[in-house]
């Protein structure tokens, strides 16, 4: 390998690419050099002087975060001289730092506390009165305590470089220096809260977690964020069955540490007081709470009766339930209810893409590919608003590798800030503009294309044909909107396709047809809200069964409402926008609710449907054995990894029904039903936000 250098760190030889910083080289050798301002992946600040090391033949101590490794360099990271220097650094940092650790949220997971402990600093030469500045509230979610701040600039850098928001700055000087928000006395930003997470001390605290708990009192549960399709891993901090906070400090998962406002703060819908905690049955026109056994008995009798008289069923599946539940639901519908009238809210034309990619392998991009690709093309989507993780990945790719991004959207998007070319095209006309980019795209090594819901049907085929004509490897991402939108398609919540895109013999009704059909006897809605915005079922007399978390418009129309669990409350797998399958685990508990899998399992048993044991592991096992592309390695899932489902088979011999694709229109601050019941998202001044605006 060219340009490798070998240096010695604490007696260990380490070989790294030239230009690697000594602090990173040390990490590679398993040596931890402490640092406050240094943050992997962001620009070097060299402000805190904590990472000073001794380098032979250099007269003074060197900051290892700003020192590129060189051939033959001999570095010592814990000599008495270094330890003395670090002690002094901490002593200075503590000059004005209030020692309010007992009431500080950061206590127990504070880097300054850890370092003070590590270097055993009990005394200070400074006897002066500490400089104080009062705490400020910048938004409902972000509080800033300048007295605790050690001016490491981490928050400023993640906001500016990581997200392109640049909402934070540093003003004043000397002991008076402090972080300032972009709107004078408050923040107007993405409210993602990453600044709070990266703060090495308790200067930035979260409006939702402040004074709520100590870090050692909570259980940490690896879950997948239920708000959008990006599939960010979020670690839920759960105490007594309640989610106290959610973040991903251990950088496990495809998102590393990244989360948006919904992932970090939008979990409060779980504990909203309007959560349904008891089944409801319509009695004399009113929904009355009943026991689970009564509700299930009622459903069983009506379903059995409808089956006996050959009645018509329609099943609307969910985009927020697990793959196991979706798979079980379509089995329940097809083998139990004997109907192919099953569909879900489709938010992207995945089917045409899968069909158009026939004969190609390795043509679906992963979230990781967005960081390593040589160029990216975004069509018809406001990535920063609708797919924050994907937007973050592309920005990081541009920051670290200068990989250009090309944008064709109906309005301004944040990617314009750094895009190589930004074209404006009305929704649906994006693909027509591609010729203008041909020469620039052809010159790249490879390309990832991301397209939103406005590109569907024939436009997808034209897009793939354009990609082929470039003569470079092209991968695609069909941007769908909900956490398991992709899983719902793959698991066959479709009237004409079963799991793994296998066509069914007699296609059933799609969603629009179900809504318009006047003669349905039973409409089964498992975790969706098709009646949102005043829509109605044309079948006025249909018996409506709804699994739902809240009394949505659809639940209000129901004859039976079964209170179901949110994704955070159950075990299972979900498939993200890039087709990556990840495992999510149950964190909080809400009394009276059941998972959709349990509900369907109990009903299947009482109805005598022989559709398999309703246990998550058993159903996953069946999925892995029978659904094409889903034979994902279990160890990857078990260890919290993401395994891309290779669903490509091409040649899907059915109409993709692109007219059934409707984008959710969700922004950074909304997420359909769940977002509506998140008070925290609703109270933000930035909410609900708009797409495609400067």
């Amino acid at each position: 390998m060219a340009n490798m250098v070998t240096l010695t760190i604490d007696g260990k030889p380490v070989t790294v690419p030239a230009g690697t910083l000594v602090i990173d080289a040390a990490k590679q050798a398993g040596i931890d050099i402490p640092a406050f301002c240094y943050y992997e992946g962001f620009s070097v600040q060299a402000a805190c002087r904590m990472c000073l090391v001794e380098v032979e033949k250099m007269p003074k101590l060197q900051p290892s975060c700003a020192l590129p490794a060189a051939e033959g360099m001999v570095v010592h990271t814990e000599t008495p001289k270094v330890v003395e220097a670090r002690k002094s650094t901490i002593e200075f940092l503590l000059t004005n730092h209030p020692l309010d650790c007992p009431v500080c949220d950061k206590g127990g997971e504070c880097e300054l506390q850890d370092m003070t402990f590590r270097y055993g600093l009990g005394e200070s030469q400074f006897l002066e009165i500490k400089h104080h500045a009062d705490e400020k509230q910048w938004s409902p979610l972000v509080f800033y305590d300048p007295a605790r701040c050690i001016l490491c600039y981490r928050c400023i850098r993640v906001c500016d470089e990581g997200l392109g928001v640049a909402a934070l700055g540093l003003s004043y000087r000397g002991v008076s220096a402090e972080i300032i928000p972009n709107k004078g006395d408050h923040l107007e930003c993405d409210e993602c809260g990453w600044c709070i997470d990266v703060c090495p001390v308790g200067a930035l605290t979260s409006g939702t977690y402040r004074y709520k708990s100590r870090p050692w009192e909570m259980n940490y549960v690896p879950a997948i964020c239920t708000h959008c399709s990006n599939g960010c891993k979020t670690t839920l901090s759960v105490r007594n069955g309640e989610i106290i906070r959610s973040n991903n400090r251990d950088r496990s998962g495809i998102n590393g540490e990244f989360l948006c406002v919904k992932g970090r703060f939008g979990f409060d819908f779980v504990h909203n007081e309007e959560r349904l905690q008891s089944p409801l049955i319509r009695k004399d026109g009113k929904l009355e709470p009943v026991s689970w056994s009564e509700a299930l008995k009622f459903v069983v009798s009506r379903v059995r009766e409808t089956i006996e008289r050959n009645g018509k069923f329609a099943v609307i599946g969910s985009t927020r339930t697990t793959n196991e539940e979706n798979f079980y639901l379509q089995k329940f519908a097809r083998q139990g209810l004997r109907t192919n009238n099953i569909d879900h809210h489709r938010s992207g034309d995945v089917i045409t893409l899968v069909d158009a990619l026939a004969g190609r392998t390795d043509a679906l991009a992963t979230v990781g590919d967005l960081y390593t690709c040589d160029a990216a093309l975004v069509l018809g989507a406001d990535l920063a608003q609708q797919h924050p993780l994907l937007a973050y990945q592309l920005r990081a790719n541009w920051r670290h590798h200068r990989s250009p991004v090309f944008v064709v959207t109906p309005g301004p998007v944040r990617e314009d800030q750094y895009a190589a070319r930004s074209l404006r095209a009305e929704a649906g006309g994006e693909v027509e503009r591609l010729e203008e980019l041909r020469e620039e795209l052809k010159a790249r090594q490879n390309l990832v294309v991301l397209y939103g819901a406005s590109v569907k049907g024939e436009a997808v085929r034209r897009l793939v044909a354009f990609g082929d004509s470039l003569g470079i490897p092209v991968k695609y991402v069909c941007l769908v909107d909900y956490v398991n939108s992709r899983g719902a398609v793959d698991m066959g919540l479709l009237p004409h396709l079963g799991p793994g895109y296998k066509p069914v013999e007699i296609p059933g009704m799609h969603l629009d047809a179900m809504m318009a059909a006047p003669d349905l006897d039973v409409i089964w809605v498992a975790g969706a809200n098709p009646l949102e915005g005043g829509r109605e079922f044309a079948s006025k007399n249909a018996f409506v069964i709804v699994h739902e978390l809240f009394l949505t418009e659809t639940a209000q129309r129901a004859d039976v409402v079964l209170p179901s669990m949110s994704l955070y409350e159950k075990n299972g797998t979900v498939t993200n926008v890039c087709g990556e399958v990840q495992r999510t685990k149950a964190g909080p508990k809400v009394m009276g609710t059941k998972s959709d899998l349990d509900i369907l399992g109990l009903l299947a048993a009482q109805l005598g449907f022989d559709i398999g044991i309703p246990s998550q592991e058993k159903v996953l096992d069946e999925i892995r054995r029978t659904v094409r592309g889903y034979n994902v390695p279990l160890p990857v899932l078990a260890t919290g990894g993401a395994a891309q489902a290779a669903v490509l088979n091409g040649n899907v011999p059915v109409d993709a029904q692109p007219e059934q694709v409707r984008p959710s229109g969700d922004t950074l601050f909304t997420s359909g039903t769940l977002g509506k019941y998140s008070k925290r998202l609703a109270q933000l001044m930035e909410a609900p936000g708009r797409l495609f605006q400067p």
Partner: protein
Amino acid sequence: MTFSPELEARFAKMIASYPPGRQKGALIPMLLYAQDEVGAVTDEVIEEVSRRLNVSRVEVEEVLGYYTMLTREPRGKYHLQICTNISCLLTGGEELFQHACRKLGIGNREKTPDGQFSLEEVECLGACSWAPAMQVNYDFHYHMTPEKLDQLIDSLRKLQ
């Protein structure tokens, strides 16, 4: 907002003198000259300067907070800046400052009610050889004594 033709011409020249993409470099002089003309760095000035130089508002505020010669609030017609750094301190700068406070009846970074005088204790003015030194707006005054300060203030009052 627009500035006077002279200032507009100055800004245009300044912006053109930085290499492409480095227009940000004109931030401090632009703020200073705009302040001289407008009287303070008002919200409109911040907005205008950030728009012209394509920097965020928070970047402008970073600079504003750091440099004490930039002010958000209008100062007096005569802004008295008295140095109390080491050379001036040893030669009576501190007494000079205290004397100015008593004479004008205001404290550090305050303004007389008639808006004529404002006072500020500043760091080194670069005039150690002639300490104690002070500045009235952009004019230097050297080897100051309380008596010379009285005369100076009285003469400025007469100018009104």
